[in-house]
C-alpha cells in the first residue's frame, strides 16, 4: 500500500507539473519556472513557522505572496533598475532562496522541515501524513492536495485552452486580437507557483524544475500538436514517477532525484529516437538526401550572409 501511494503521488506530481510545464517550454520561460520554484521557499518556510504545522492554506498563501514578490522584483529591476532580464531573474531568486535556506537552518527543530526536504523532498514519508475526516482515514494529505492542483491545472487549461495556446505561440497576435495576454501570463505563473508548492514536499524545490520542463521538452520533440504534447508530457510525467521509483529502489537513493534522472533518460530517448525531430531522424533524412543526387542539388542551402 505504501509503495502504491508513493507511485500515485509521484504520478500526480508528474502530471500536474508536466501540464503547466508545456506552456513554460513553449513560451520560452523554462528558467522562470526554475526561478519561481526557488523563490517561493521563504514563503513556505515562513508559513511553516507562523502556523507551526503543515496546513495547506497558509503554505499556499506564503508561496503565492513570494511568487508575486519575485515577479514584481524582477520587473522592477528590469524597468526601473534597467537591468538585463537574465541577471534580474538570477539576482532575485538566488537571494530569496538563500533567505529561505537560512530560515530553514535557523529554525530546524522548531518546524518539521529540514534542508534535505528543500532539496529533494520526502516522498517516502508523505504517505504517512494522512488526513482524517470525521474520524475516517481518507488517505495521504499530499494525495488530496495534488489531486486538487492537477484538477485546477486541467480546469484552467481546459477552459482557457484557446487563449493559452495563442499566447504560447504568438503573444503579439493574441494581444492584437484583444486577448488579455498579461492576465493569462500571470495565471500561468500562478499555476506554476501553486504546482511547485503542492509538489514541494514530495520532490523539493530544485527537482521540481525537472518535473516541470523535462517531460514537456521530451513531448515537444515528438509532436507538433499542443493537445498531443500535453497528453504525452503527462504520460512522461507518470513514467518518470514509476521509473524513478524503480531506479531509486535499484540503487538505494532518493526517489525524487531518481524521478528527475528518469525524466532525463526519457528526454534523451526522445531526442535520439523521435521520428520527426530526433537526431536519428535527422541523420536518416540527411543520408537519404545524400543518396538522391537530384535532391542534393536542390537542397544545398544558398550562402546566408
Amino acid at each position, binding site marked *: 500500500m505504501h509503495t502504491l501511494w508513493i507511485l500515485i503521488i509521484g504520478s500526480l506530481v508528474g502530471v500536474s507539473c508536466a501540464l503547466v510545464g508545456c506552456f513554460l517550454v513553449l513560451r520560452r520561460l*523554462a528558467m522562470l519556472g526554475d526561478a519561481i520554484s526557488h523563490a517561493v521557499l521563504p514563503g513556505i518556510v515562513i508559513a511553516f513557522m507562523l502556523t507551526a504545522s503543515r496546513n495547506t492554506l497558509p503554505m499556499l498563501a506564503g508561496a503565492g505572496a513570494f511568487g508575486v514578490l519575485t515577479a514584481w522584483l524582477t520587473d522592477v529591476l528590469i524597468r526601473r533598475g534597467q537591468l538585463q532580464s537574465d*541577471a534580474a531573474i538570477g539576482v532575485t531568486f538566488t537571494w530569496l532562496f538563500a533567505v529561505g535556506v537560512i530560515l530553514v537552518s535557523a529554525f530546524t527543530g522548531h518546524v518539521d522541515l529540514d534542508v534535505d526536504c528543500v532539496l529533494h523532498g520526502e516522498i517516502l514519508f508523505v504517505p504517512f501524513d494522512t488526513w482524517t475526516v470525521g474520524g475516517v482515514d481518507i488517505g495521504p494529505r499530499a494525495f488530496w492536495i495534488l489531486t486538487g492542483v492537477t484538477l485546477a491545472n486541467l480546469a484552467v487549461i481546459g477552459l482557457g485552452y484557446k487563449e493559452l495556446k495563442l499566447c504560447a505561440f504568438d503573444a503579439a497576435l493574441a494581444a492584437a486580437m484583444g486577448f488579455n495576454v498579461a492576465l493569462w501570463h500571470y495565471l500561468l505563473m500562478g499555476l506554476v507557483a501553486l504546482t511547485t508548492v503542492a509538489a514541494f514536499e514530495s520532490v523539493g524545490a530544485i527537482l521540481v524544475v525537472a518535473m516541470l520542463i523535462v517531460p514537456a521538452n521530451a513531448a515537444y520533440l515528438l509532436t507538433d500538436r499542443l493537445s498531443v504534447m500535453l497528453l504525452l508530457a503527462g504520460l512522461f510525467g507518470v513514467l518518470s514517477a514509476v521509473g524513478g521509483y524503480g531506479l531509486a529502489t535499484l540503487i538505494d537513493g532518493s526517489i*525524487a*532525484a531518481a524521478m528527475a534522472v528518469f525524466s532525463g533518460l526519457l528526454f534523451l530517448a526522445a531526442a535520439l529516437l523521435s521520428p520527426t525531430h530526433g537526431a536519428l531522424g535527422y541523420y536518416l533524412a540527411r543520408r537519404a538526401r545524400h543518396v538522391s543526387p537530384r535532391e542534393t542539388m536542390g537542397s544545398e542551402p544558398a550562402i546566408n550572409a
Partner: protein
Amino acid sequence: MNWLEFFQFGSVNVRTVTLGCMVIGLSAGVLGCFAFLRRRSLLGDALAHAALPGVCVAFMLTGTRDPLVIMLGAVVACWLGAVSIDAITRYTRCKEESALGMVLSVFFGVGILLLTHIQHTGGAAQAGLERFLFGQAAAMRPHDLRVLSIASVLMLAATAVGYRHFKLASFDPQFMDALNLPRRWASLAMATLLVLAVAIGLQAVGVVLMAAMLVTPAAAARYWTHHLSVMLALAGVFGAISGAIGAYISYLQAGMPTGPWMVVAVSLIFGVSVLFAPKQGLVARGLRARRFRQRTAEENLLRTLYRLGEDRKDWEQAHTSGSLIQYRPMDTAVLLRVMGRLERQGLVYEPEEGLFQLTAQGLERAARLTRLHRLWELYLTQKLNLPADHVHADAEEIEHILTPELEAHLVASLEEPARDPHARAIPEDKE
C-alpha cells in the same frame, strides 16, 4: 567574546576560512562579469548545479574529500553539462533556456541520487559531502586554502592574459570575426574559466547558490562604472567582501551554511548599488529626473512671461498669476512654487505681492528659449513639411534640450530666419 576573536584573526582556522571565502568571492565575482555581459547569467546557475554529480563520483572513486580531487570531478561534470546544453540547443529543436533548465535539474537529480546512495550505503567517511550543497566554510583547512589560492591566481592571470579578447568577445563578437580573431577559442576559454570558478567555489558557497556569486557581484558592479576593467575589479571586491561576511557569520553561528549568507551579503551590496550608485542608481536617476522636470517647469514659465509681454513689445510690465494660468493652465500652488525658485535664481522678481516680472537676466533666458522653440517649429515645417499647427507640442519638449551647437546648425540650415511658422518674430541671439 566570539566576534572580537574573529577580528583579531588570531587562530589559523579563522584566518583560513575568511581568506578562503574571500578568494572564492573574488574569483567568482571577476569571472561572472563575462557571463553577465554576454547575457548568459543563468548559464552559471546551470553549470553550478551540474557540478554535483562530479563531486559525488570523484568521492565514490577515490574515497577522499581532497579539494583537488573534488574540483577535478566538478570540472568534468560541469564540462559535460556545458556540452549537453550545447548539444541540446544545436541538435534538437529545444530552446536554450529549456536546455539550461533540463541540464540543471537532471544533473542535479543525478547528483542527489548519488549523494543519497552514498549516505545510505557509505560509512563515516561520507560525512560532510552534503556541505557541497550549501557550502560549509568552517570545514576549510589550510591545505584547501592553498589549492584554492593557487587555482584562483592562475585563473586571474589567465583572465589578464586573455583580457582583450574576452572584452571583444563580450561586447562585439562580430567585430572579432571580422578581424579574424579566434572568437570560438575566446568563448571556450571564458566558459572554462567560469567552470573553474564554479569548481573552486563549491566548498564555501555550494552548488545550489553558486550562481549568485557569479551574477550578483557583476550586476552590482555594472551600476558603478562603464569600464570593463573597473567593473571586474569592483565585482571582485564585492565578491570578496561578501565572502568575508559569510565566513564571519558562519563563524559566529556554528552549523550555519556559509553559502546562503554570502549570497545575502552580496545581494545587500547589490541593493545598495541599485539604489545609491552615483550615476545609474535609482536615487541619482530620480534626482536627475526631478531636476529636469523642475527646470522644464521653470523654463516654461519664463517663456510664458515672454509671450505675455511680446504683444506690446513691453517686457517691463508685471503679470498676475491669473493671467499666466490663463495662458498656461496649471495649479496656482505649483505656479507659486516654480516662481519662488525662479526668484531665488534672480530670473523673476515680484514688484508687488502676486505680480511677476522678468529681470534682465530672466528676459535674456526667456528670449533664448523662445528662439529655440520657434527655430524648431520652423525647422519642422520647412524641412519635414509638417503643418504649422502640428509642431508646437514637439517644440515644447525640445526647447529644453537644444544645445548651442544644434542651434547654430538650425540657424545655418534655415538661413538666418526672422519669423516662425505662426509669423511671430524669432528673438535674436544676444551673444
